């Protein structure tokens, strides 16, 4: 084989690979395209570009509100979740204290627990506390991440203790050491975990489904499922409108994904492949 033909073969393989990737994503790409078509054009097979579907989804079906709810809930869950996990990880990595190993074991045990066992009791707890149909009801059950705590503890153990000790010598408190020494060094790990928390909460479906009945508090996932199900199973669905709502639901994560894919992949493989 000459160099020329092998280069051409490489081009061909690369081209086919990219084509396969586009075909793989085509349902989603097409749904975005469809969301910019008028219903008439879509059902008659023509092309007629419009923003009306977004206007209807946001205006008539309250998707701006759902978007805001999703941003607020996922944002707070991520912020609190990562803070609590980092604090606990720091304590487990750096302090010897009575009960510490037991507590760490209890945290690790939560990695095995399927979330569905907590569904009914958490519903009851929040009902009793009068917190169904509230942001608190959406947020509180989601902010203790055993995985993030476990993962960050492993990471922090890899940071030389000499750095902490130098800071303590200068009279720093543990909180200062955490904030000034550990957190800056752990930034990549904390960022990866925060991303995973955010994505998981953004896409959370079953908990908002049971905890929220007030439509002003719907997250995007619930709003989209309801909009689609107006006429379940029937083909009188306004597909372009549904796809506009779907695009609003996907787009923030899609845009973020392009920027942070590397961190996300690193976090996932670090968690799975030791």
């Amino acid at each position, binding site marked *: 084989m000459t160099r020329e033909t092998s280069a051409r073969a490489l081009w061909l393989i690369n081209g086919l690979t990219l084509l396969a990737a586009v075909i793989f994503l085509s349902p989603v790409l097409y749904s975005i395209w469809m969301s910019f078509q008028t219903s008439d054009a879509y059902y008659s097979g023509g092309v007629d570009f419009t923003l009306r579907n977004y206007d209807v989804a946001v205006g008539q079906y309250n998707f701006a509100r759902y978007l805001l709810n999703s941003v607020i809930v996922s944002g707070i869950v991520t912020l609190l979740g990562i803070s609590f996990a980092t604090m606990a990880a720091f304590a487990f990595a750096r302090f010897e204290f009575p009960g510490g190993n037991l507590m760490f074991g209890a945290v690790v045990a939560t990695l095995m627990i399927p979330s569905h066992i907590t569904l009914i009791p958490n519903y009851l*707890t929040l009902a009793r506390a009068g917190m169904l149909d509230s942001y608190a009801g959406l947020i509180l059950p989601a902010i203790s991440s055993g995985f993030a705590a476990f993962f960050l503890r492993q990471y922090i153990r890899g940071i030389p203790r000499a750095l902490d000790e130098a800071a303590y010598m200068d009279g720093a408190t543990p909180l200062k050491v955490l904030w000034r020494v550990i957190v800056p060094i752990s930034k990549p790990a904390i960022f990866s975990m925060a991303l995973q928390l955010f994505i998981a909460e953004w896409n959370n479906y079953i908990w908002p489904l049971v905890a929220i009945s007030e439509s002003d508090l719907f997250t995007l996932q619930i709003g989209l499922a309801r909009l689609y199900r107006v006429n379940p199973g029937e083909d009188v669905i306004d597909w372009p409108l549904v796809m506009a709502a779907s695009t609003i639901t996907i787009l923030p994560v899609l845009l973020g994904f392009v920027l942070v894919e590397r961190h996300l992949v690193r976090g996932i493989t670090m968690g799975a492949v030791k």
Partner: protein
Amino acid sequence: MLRKLTPYLFVLPLLGFMAVFTYYPILQSVNLSFREWDFMSPTKPWVGLDNYRLLLTTRDFWNSLKVTAVFALISVPLRLALALAVASFLIRETAVSRISRGAIFLPAVTSTVSIAVVFSWVFSTDYGAINGFIALLGFDKVTWMQDPQLALYVIIFVNTWKQLGYDVIIYTAGLQAISMEYYDAAAVDGGRRFHVFRRVTFPLVMPTTYFLLVISVIDAFQVFTIVDVMTRGGPAGATDMIVNMLYRVGFTLFDIGTGSALAVLLFIFLIALALVKARVIGRRVHYDS
């Protein structure tokens, strides 16, 4: 004094919320599984094992167990085989490989509801993409999601499509961890491609396969969203996965006792699987060092 309290203060927020929203609910579920309650009545009478007995004699329970088992038996090998093939093909760190892996990974982090809605369109009878192609070829339309023989396969397809990227990422990491020396040795021996794969790649990537196997079985028993959006367990219970039944019994029939019993059974089963997973990871860590 304060010095001694410090670590406790640091773990308090995490463990406090875990106590209320994770540990307590487990005990509460077990407790409720022995009682009869409908969310409303002032008393929750103790009924012993009645809920479990009822569950084990209900057609719905065995049906959802069967549906979930069939789902796992088909979707798990499918996911692993596809993922290993794709990861092997995209293993090199070229721009095209990276972009393609990113494209395949995208659905794994995207909203499951959106994906379910998009594929509801793809498989819809009158305007869907697939029936569009079928019509172009001159065949009759297929009622994908209304046909009890087909609906579960549609769900399996969509779930595989969504999860594939995650498996590919893990396999890619596993494959890249295999030392080049093995391949060099195989090359010296004049190994052919398939031979090298069978004798070198496949055995060395086995720990990753075990890991993904357990993970994807655990996933299979927790599928809910795709089914809830696309078929709601229908037609005629053909896609009624365990969690869909749990949701229906608990939150639409308000039978808290039976719902809790179902949750407890699922819990026991998944904990057993998770222990297998922990052993697999333990062995692998050992294997590496």
